[in-house]
């Protein structure tokens, strides 16, 4: 979708990146490489912003009275500001067993964890509060958004847990997010979305309605996209263990059609709800992904709220 845009920043290939053993260092190298590649950040940040004056009414805090205006015009006015909060971002990371598949030397789960850690670090460096919710068929770990150095480490530790579970349930973690997160913020969901999409529509709609800005990252293995198997063998579902005798030549076209239909359904859903949806092959460098995300944000799809974003 968006990975055709190529930044000028130097990039580390995912193969090389995954060779770094510690997730924290992986994230750090991506983020630093990203900052080094940027000559100038387009999102320099906002300052506290004045919005309007209003007439003083008894009971207002005298600290907010604009005394200069009183000196010039002898009127008591109150300066009113845009409420200032840091961004609260919750990362939803799929750790189901289907994420443990990978044909390029690293799995989708590795890639997703690195992506999540990179985002977390990136946001943390900007002073935002980052939280994590990992899930398979149920919620595994929940770390509420906070801005603390130790918190980032806890997120990294939670991300390093191996994939598990026998199914992927996309709906219940989102519903849980709706229950847990009352303040508006950003929700970034990283998954392969290889699950039925029926109920997803309603839950995502509720989140968006609650004021959350939702971004979906769909992590996919190149083989899942192309299905370029050659010989007929026994295929085994890594999640359920179900096996099927399959002659790839016979089923390739049908698979591609169904896969594309599923992707289309997901994209259609995103468009309808006005949320961003990025399909990410595990071979795509993470810096370009960050850049794409930032660019997409600036030009971004129709969002429910445009005030908060990844960066300020």
């Amino acid at each position, binding site marked *: 979708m968006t990975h055709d845009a190529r930044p000028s920043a130097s990039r580390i290939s995912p193969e090389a990146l995954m060779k770094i053993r510690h997730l924290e260092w992986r994230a750090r190298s991506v983020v630093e490489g990203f900052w080094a590649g940027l000559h100038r950040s387009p999102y320099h940040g906002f300052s506290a912003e004045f919005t309007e004056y209003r007439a003083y009414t008894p009971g207002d805090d005298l600290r907010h009275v604009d005394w200069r205006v009183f000196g010039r015009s002898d009127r008591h006015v109150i300066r009113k500001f845009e409420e200032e909060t840091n961004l609260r971002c919750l990362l939803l990371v799929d750790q189901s067993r*289907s*994420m443990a*598949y*990978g*044909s*390029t030397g690293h799995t*989708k789960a590795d890639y997703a964890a690195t992506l999540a850690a990179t985002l977390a670090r990136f946001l943390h460096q900007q002073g935002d509060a980052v939280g994590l919710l990992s899930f398979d068929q149920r919620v595994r770990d929940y770390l509420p958004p906070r801005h603390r150095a130790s918190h980032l480490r806890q997120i990294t530790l939670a991300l390093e847990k191996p994939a598990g579970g026998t199914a992927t349930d996309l709906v219940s973690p989102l519903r849980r997010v709706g229950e847990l997160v009352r303040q508006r913020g950003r929700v970034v969901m990283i998954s*392969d979305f*290889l699950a039925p999409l029926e109920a997803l529509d309603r839950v995502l709609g509720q989140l968006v309605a609650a004021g959350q800005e939702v971004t979906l990252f769909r992590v996919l*293995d190149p*083989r*899942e996209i192309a299905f370029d*198997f*050659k*010989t*007929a*063998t*026994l*295929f*085994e*579902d*890594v*999640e*359920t263990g*179900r*096996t*099927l*005798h*399959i*002659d790839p030549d*016979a*089923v390739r076209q*049908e*698979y591609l059609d*169904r*896969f594309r239909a*599923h992707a289309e359904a997901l994209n259609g859903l995103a468009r309808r709800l006005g949320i961003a949806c990025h399909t990410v092959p595990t071979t795509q460098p993470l810096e370009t992904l960050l850049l794409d995300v930032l660019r997409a944000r600036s030009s971004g799809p129709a969002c429910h709220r445009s005030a908060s974003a990844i960066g300020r």
Partner: protein
Amino acid sequence: MTFLTPLFLLGTLAVAGPILFHLVRQATRDRVPFSSLEFLRAAPPRLDRRSRVEHWLLLLLRCAAIVLLGLGFARPFLKGVTDALPGTVEARRVVVLLDTSASLQRPGVWDRALERVRHHLRNQAGIQDLALVTFDRTPRVVVPFTDWRNAPPDTRTALVEQRLVGLAPGWGDTRLDTALQAGLDLLGESVGGPPPVDRELIVVSDLQEGSRTESLQTTEWPKGVRVVLDGVQSDRPGNAGIELLTGDDATPEASSNGVRVRIVNSPDATADRFEIAWQSGTSTTRVGTPMAVQVTPGQSRVVSLPRPTAPGADRIVLGGDAAGFDNTVFVTARPTNAVALRYVGVATDRTSRAPLYFLERALPERGTPPVVWMQQSADATALGGFQTFWKLTVVAAPPSPAVTDSIRSQVDQGATALVLANTPEAVNRLGALLGIADLTGTAEAQPGGSLLVDIDFRHPLFAPFADPRFSDFSRMRIWKPMRIDPARIPGAKVLARLDSGGPGLLEVPMGRGRVVIVPWGWSPADSQWVLSTKFVPFLMALLDASGALPSDRASTLAVGDPLPMPSSAEGSARELELPSGNRVPAPTSGANFTATTTPGIHRLFGEGPVREWAVNVAPSESRTAATVSGVLDALGVPLRERSAAEVSQTPTPAVQAAVETEGRQKLWRWFLAATLLILVVETLAAGWAARRSKRTREGQTP
């Protein structure tokens, strides 16, 4: 192509295995993990025949290996090629050792043994030389190599058959070591050329535990020689035997009251109740009351059977055992090997002053050898019961003329007389014995006594003292010696001198015998001689020199043991009665009678009392358990024992010929080599295929 063991061809059906595996393997092989099968439907690969078998080359190689292996095990051979390859016949030399010991008399054993010999005769392909040797205690060549070679090939079997007809098991014990040695010597013989390399000793025997194998310990077995043990067994397992205990085995009490016998029951026996009874030679009825004996299989028991009061019983028979060859022991009436010697002295003097007192203690009746001193009065005027030939006579008192004549005549015939000439009268009577008139002696008493000096230690009488440890006679004093002039006695030899000057001991040859003159007395008052340590060895030497010692110490003899003939006077006619009742001339004195082929009482008739020997079956024959093969194996004999299956089945001549042909062609070797070659190729091909499929899989599996 024909097959010796075509049943193994069924093994080639195992080719179904690789074919099946090649078909089935594909379906069950590797699994490819995939993230989700949600977008996939089952599409099994098409099952047309071409696509199912994956590695045609491997399949063919594996099938070929199995088929070739099956063909090889079926022992193929080409029928037509048999005659075209005469050079491949390996010459064999075979010695068949046929056991004819007493244990082969057990029911059914001998017939089986003959059948086994005939079986080996039928299987004579490749045999260049064959000899048939029977053995028990000694081996006997029945068919030598030369007879076998000289006979036309088609009559050889008949030749051996003909010699087998006259054979029967005897009574001897089994000396397997001697037989194997003899067979080995035969195998090494050169019969018109060097012996063939392939040599075989076939032992047809009951392989009993009692076989003697001791001397095989030092036997060197040349290369190419192998020993085939062909065991034959009895119809009825187990055997009990009876053995006579005498000599050291039997206590004096037992031997005086009865006869002690040992009853042995073999470990595989079924019976354990027996009875023993005396029986006489003339009838088969039992004498006296039988005694019941219980012997557990594998055990032995010693019992004492009282001698019957009725005369004539000369054997003990064991009842209750099926194998009768060792159920009888022959017993002589009394041990007759006591040595009887004559003592001529004063009849009334049996005090401790008389020499007889010391002689009876030095050589007692119950000693070894047992000696009976027959005392004859010196003044006897008639010989009475003393007309026997006495090998040794001790003259302790001046004998009467009648006794002197008796002594002289016996000395002339070879007897020995020892004369104590310690008084002038005794010297005078000695002169009468030697035929010298007026032989006189003078008493020469020396203060402190005389000593024996200048002793001739080379003489047999003093030879026991030749060793410097025993040659000291300086403590033995003689107080009242008589001085006899040796010059007056023709042929007299002085064996020792007295330090006073006179002769100490004289030997005078006379006729075929001799007279030993002791010119001093043997009572303690006359000399210290009888109390010295030299006395008994001197007497033994005297017995030995006089030939009075019996040469047959053993009182029980086994079949095959030689009978020692006692010495006898010249020209006496003696006859030996065999157990069969036949009488044969006995060998001369000193020779042995060796033809003890049957157990029983052997009696020697001649001068003097009848001598008896009991010859029995050797006790070792009673140990019939077939366990000697283990012993032979331990002794390093190159064994190739026939299996029970091999013994039971006798192949037909056609099968024999097939076996020979196959053995010569040995085509199975080629099949086996081809199999190995194919397996090597298969291994390489499988490795190559595995590498290739691994590469393919790596492209497919994450």
